[in-house]
């Protein structure tokens, strides 16, 4: 019981870190969303180098551990290009955004591929324009897949975000380590941090499931 009390006491000390984790993951999600659309457009583009660039980028993101990506962006690339000072916070947003964007673009590409063939042709035959086809016919069908995928991306990013504790960002993980160094207790701050991550990621997952069911019902009904 004493352990539970100590964990509860530690939680308020970690809220600063939690706020940073949430802020970075939120910004990275927006960046990822934007990027995933750019990737999808690039992959459908008529320019071969653009298509290959997008495919190469997605492969790079799928093959590189987020830890190494962050070390490369924060330590490696600025040293190579003499970029001067870079902000760890924004490198965090960038790295998670790049990773999340690639992840999301794959999910969306899969969803588009599953749309029944011939729909866009029929829409065109009915006299709808390209933009109208997307807006009226395709996007409403993609939404039930895209929104939960976006929520999935958020969960994925939160789970990857402790990587930022390795490059100066005082996120939830780093904050719990600071408390450990102060109290000389290696276990309690970690359990408290794990609890907060669980609540955060768990609620995103629940929200995503709820959204999925709601949207499916609306499509079905």
């Amino acid at each position, binding site marked *: 019981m004493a352990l539970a009390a100590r964990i509860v006491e530690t939680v308020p000390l970690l809220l600063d870190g939690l706020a940073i984790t949430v802020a970075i993951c939120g910004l990275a999600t927006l960046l990822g969303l934007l990027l995933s659309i750019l990737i999808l457009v690039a992959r459908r583009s008529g320019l071969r180098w653009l298509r290959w660039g997008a495919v190469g980028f997605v492969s790079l993101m*799928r*093959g590189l*551990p987020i830890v190494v990506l962050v070390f490369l962006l924060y330590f*490696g690339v600025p*040293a190579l290009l003499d970029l001067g000072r870079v902000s760890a916070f924004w490198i965090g947003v960038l790295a998670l955004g790049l990773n999340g964007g690639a992840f999301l673009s794959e999910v969306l590409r899969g969803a588009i591929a599953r749309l029944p063939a011939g729909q866009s042709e029929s829409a065109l035959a009915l006299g709808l324009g390209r933009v109208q086809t997307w807006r009226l016919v395709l996007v409403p069908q993609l939404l039930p897949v895209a929104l939960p995928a976006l929520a999935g991306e958020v969960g994925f990013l939160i789970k990857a975000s*402790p*990587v930022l504790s390795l490059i100066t960002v005082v996120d939830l993980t780093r904050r719990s380590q600071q408390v450990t160094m102060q109290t000389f207790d290696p276990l309690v701050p970690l359990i408290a*941090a794990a609890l907060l991550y669980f609540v955060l990621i768990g609620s995103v997952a629940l929200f995503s499931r709820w959204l999925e069911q709601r949207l499916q019902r609306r499509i079905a009904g």
Partner: protein
Amino acid sequence: MIGLLSDYGDVILGGLLGTVAIVGIGFLVGGLAGILLAFPLMSRLRLLRWPARSLVELIRNTPFLIQAMLLFAAFGVLRLRLDPTLVGTLSVAIYTSAYMAEIVRGAMHSIPRGQTDAAAALGLPALLRFRLVILPQLVPFALPASVNLLATVAKESAFLSAVSVAELTYAGQVVIAQTFRVFEVWAIVGTLYLLLVLTVLTAAQRLERRMRWVRPT
């Protein structure tokens, strides 16, 4: 870059072998544990299902780094001296087991219930029923997903460097501490991960394509 490789190539190679061993063994052990874990997960008895469900959700909804740190801290509190590589492998196994259990559950879910009943009606004993009816449908569904999981686990294992496990990323840090050659070292380490993970992902894609014809639709 050449000089760096000739002086510290053995350190990097040692790290790569560490990663391959930790991920390989951890994934194998965790995969088997996950298959076993899938059974209570699918049980109709709450008493069996709930603890398994809680464990799986706990693992799937917390970051791998936090899990690994917790495991290390717990062994420390218990004053058990274990090799860090072993504890790292164990944390990979625990992580793998939860995701594998979900893959197996999802695969079983996709098999129509009527099939087992039909097989039972034909008088097939339980074990044969599993081997002849369930397993052949399970594998095409679960195998590509498992190989994808292997790629994810290989990437997550880089977090183990933060808890001083001698793997590839940690080897990179050791070399940087001695040479300060930041970009080159991370470029080399990154390339090695890329080769490792993309090889696994390509295998997953091949498997998926090959097994599509048997996959239940």
